[in-house]
């Protein structure tokens, strides 16, 4: 198999190479393309943003409450402007002072993606009203799911979208863990993950740690002295920073035996570090308006809140470093974030994970060390991740041997949509089908995030379901409002014969990716059109004489089969 290095690199850096993008890279050169990708110009309204602006999603539910949901939304916004006003108080009483009676409201409409730009406090307060409809809360995260797929398919800034996907998985949050997470999800995706995707890791780490979704998902919001809740502290070390490879469990509680610990620079972490770090984060909670001490309540802007009363102020030892007792507010937690973010183990762990995402399941140690060196050199740069990504994308390994990655379902289906030039306007069905393939966006249960190696994704269930997903996309298996494959319209008018059709579509979907044997078999299948259960063989040079709908269906099945080839499952 001779696949061009540019194609291999492009296919790995994006949600799938397209012939247009490939031509562009060949024109400007790989390093120029990389530089452009590393500095996305967000003032340019690209295809994805245009689609998001025009996107309409249905919402339908019945609601029983004091006022119409649209009014509740306004009341919630007003509450947000009043800075801490309790919106539900505004409507409990009717005109005559009596308690108003609940009414039934029906909502059924097609609505644009109106929540993606809403500020955090509005998102939080709107849902924080009594009886606020569940469908409206769910809508918040639903819009992000839809926008994520649109951007993966159509964004010009493909490397950014890949990175955003990486960070969402690295700092996995299951939005099912709490409705409040769903409600603020647009703000978290925008102001935490996207904002810092190309930024500085230490800053990203803190933004995540102090974001309501992580505070809820790993329970730190309720962690107080004592005993503290260890959930966040453990995953901070094991998954977010040092990684399980630096969990020195065999040393148990013998912290003195951890290499480097006596110099305040422990090489890895043990359970005691988890216990101590958990104490350091006690009192780090969310401004979610919750009551405490019977009559008081936290602010309700949906942001971070430090509640000193819950904090365990006494001395702690984390990774061999001593934290004095009675530090100023937040200092304990900040110190732990510093220790974890700037730990040499974190540089290695994160570099390996990024290389695994972009290059190969088992990246070479040499590559990992090179990337980790850049990671460490720029540990304090505001655009640390730009340097790191440049090192990865320009590494010779980026265009190394094909097939060291198995596409995850999102990459698979986006690469198909992108290469075919299909017009897909994602909604529930698309998200559900992706979930059936094993990738349910923002719904992975354990804090690991979706797996990233072939061991997991090369499984019969996932394979079969993605083949069927592609087939249903290509053969009218979805609502026509949602999916327009436009296979015939996208076939140049000068293609007339069976061979020309087959060649055009195989080149378009997978330029020089398919083995000659695969190509030959697919083409042969295409030329044997089955009519009323009888296969009819057509000569390669014969002109296609099928009617339009038969041809569209046959071509749809054909491109779906091309997407089901072994080659198309890999990157």
């Amino acid at each position, binding site marked *: 198999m001779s696949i061009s290095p540019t194609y291999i690199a492009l296919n790995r850096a994006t949600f799938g190479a397209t012939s247009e993008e490939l031509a562009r890279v060949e024109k400007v050169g790989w390093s120029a393309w990389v530089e452009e990708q590393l500095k996305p110009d967000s003032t340019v309204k690209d295809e994805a943003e245009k689609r998001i602006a025009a996107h309409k999603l249905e919402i339908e539910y019945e609601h029983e409450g004091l006022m119409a949901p649209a009014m509740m939304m306004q009341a919630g916004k007003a509450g947000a402007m009043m800075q801490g006003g309790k919106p539900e108080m505004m409507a409990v009483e009717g005109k005559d002072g009596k308690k108003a009676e609940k009414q039934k409201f029906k909502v059924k409409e097609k609505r644009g993606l109106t929540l993606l730009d809403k500020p955090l406090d509005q998102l939080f307060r709107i849902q924080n009203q009594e009886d606020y409809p569940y469908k409206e809360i769910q809508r918040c995260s639903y819009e992000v799911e839809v926008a994520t797929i649109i951007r993966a398919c159509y964004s010009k800034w493909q490397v950014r979208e890949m990175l955003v996907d990486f960070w969402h998985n690295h700092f996995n949050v299951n939005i099912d863990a709490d409705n409040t997470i769903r409600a603020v999800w647009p703000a978290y995706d925008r102001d935490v993950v996207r904002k810092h995707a190309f930024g500085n890791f230490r800053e990203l780490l803190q933004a995540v740690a102090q974001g309501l979704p992580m505070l809820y998902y790993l329970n730190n919001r309720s962690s107080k002295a004592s005993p503290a809740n260890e959930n966040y502290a453990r995953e901070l070390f094991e998954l977010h920073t040092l990684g399980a490879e630096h969990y020195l469990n065999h040393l148990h509680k013998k912290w003195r035996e951890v290499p480097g610990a006596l110099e305040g620079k422990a090489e890895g972490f043990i359970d005691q570090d988890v216990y101590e770090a958990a104490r350091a984060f006690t009192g780090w909670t969310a401004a979610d308006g919750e009551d405490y001490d019977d009559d008081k309540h936290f602010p309700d802007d949906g942001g971070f809140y430090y509640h000193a009363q819950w904090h365990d102020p006494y001395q702690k030892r984390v990774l061999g470093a001593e934290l004095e007792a009675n530090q100023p507010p937040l200092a304990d937690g900040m110190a732990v974030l510093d220790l974890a973010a700037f730990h040499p183990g974190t540089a290695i762990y994160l570099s390996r994970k990024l290389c695994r995402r972009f290059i190969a399941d088992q990246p070479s140690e040499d590559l990992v060390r090179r990337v980790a060196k850049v990671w460490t050199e720029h540990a304090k740069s505001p655009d640390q991740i730009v340097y790191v990504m440049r090192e990865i994308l320009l590494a010779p390994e980026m265009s190394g041997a094909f097939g060291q990655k198995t596409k995850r379902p999102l990459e698979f289906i986006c690469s198909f949509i992108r290469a075919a030039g299909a017009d897909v306007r994602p909604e529930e069905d698309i998200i559900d089908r992706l979930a059936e393939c094993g990738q349910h966006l923002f719904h992975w*249960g354990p804090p690991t995030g979706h797996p990233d190696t072939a*061991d997991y994704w090369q499984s*019969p269930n*996932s394979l*079969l379901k993605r083949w069927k997903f592609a087939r249903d996309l290509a053969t009218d298996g979805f609502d026509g409002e949602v999916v327009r494959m436009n296979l015939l319209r996208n076939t140049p008018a000068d293609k007339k014969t069976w061979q020309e059709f087959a060649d055009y579509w195989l080149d378009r979907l997978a330029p020089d990716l398919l083995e000659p044997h695969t190509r030959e078999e697919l083409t042969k299948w295409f030329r044997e059109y089955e009519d009323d259960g009888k296969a009819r063989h057509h000569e390669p040079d014969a002109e296609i004489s099928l009617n339009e709908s038969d041809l569209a269906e046959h071509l749809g*099945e054909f491109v779906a089969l091309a997407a089901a080839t072994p080659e198309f499952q890999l990157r």
Partner: protein
Amino acid sequence: MNRRHFLCSSLATLTGSRITNLTFAADAPQSHDHLLVVLFLRGGCDGLNLLGPANDKDYIAARPEWLRATDAGKFEGIALKNGYNGIDMRLHREAGALKELYDSGHLAMIHACGLKNGSRSHFEAQDMMERGVTDQKNISIASGWLTRTIEALSPHGLLPAVAVGGELPDSLLHSKVAVSMSEARNFTYGRENQLALLKRLYEGSESIHRIGKLTLDTITALQSKLTRDGDGNVQDYTPEKGVSYEDTGNLGESLRNLAQIAKMEAGLRVATVDYDGWDTHEDQEYRFNELVSEFSRALSSFYNDMSRFHSKMTVVVHTEFGRRLKSNQSEGTDHGYGGVHMVLGNGIKGGKLHGEWRGLANDQLDEGADLAITTDYRTVLTEVLTQRVGLADTKSIFPGFEMKKALGIV
């Protein structure tokens, strides 16, 4: 070096034997068709909330009543016969369905059981358990313990191993025959000529080819086994009379799908089902109620649905660890150590708590904090594999593990 090859050769070195060379015990019962079902409670099920010593003073001191099985009041647990010498061990009040299985004599439970490694990390603990090792350094070189079990069984059926309801768990890592699926009837693709084409395309030798071929062969096998009406349409699966999976959630759905697959008589020997959500660091009372209720009812429905198979099926229930004796301030519990494991089947010495219960006083705890493990989970599995599933020994399944004394579960 090809990674897969590396894995295989290292394992062989590790175990000092060829894993495919196992011999069978001539008198092993049901060795040709016994079905082993492994149900994994992921997240670390709080064994002390599921099955607790109701009036133990250390237990009472360490947790509020809503995280205990008490002997009276709102949180009163279900008393069990044949517990640990005189201790009033009680099941969580939502586990009524488990109590029925226990009383029928088919369900055995083992408390203070688990992975003797000390890891309080979910992912490490699961990785090690599913690979059948206790040493972190063996993780990267081992296949799944069920993978090795299937290899040792060298089954001939169409569908020897299935992971139901998701992708393959690590216990089936690197299996050449295990298939993941949800519902059997949907395991199909297109017309005959499309399947034939795909089979030709997946003839290669890379792992992706192997998985693709396995998928395609499974489609053919399943389609030949599904029950059809006169017009050739696949019929809906109907559980045994009187059995309902209603309100048993995702677990019930997976187990229902499993029952259908098992009854197709396609040679199923090993099946895995996962049940997530046991990581109850916060608001445990509410969540645990739901989990225990759903788990108990789903397991019971499945067992009743499989009534014809009780003597030739064993269900094993695992979790990666139990939870801390002392609860935290979030009304939950953090990662602990010993937990509850279960074995279910006709012929199991059920209706009894197996293993050793030492108590919850400070000096009886592991690291002064968690329920100490008195039974290595592999002791349970070894008994099941040799006495039920039909392996002569488990040397290649659990390399380096020597069972000190059988519990007498079978």
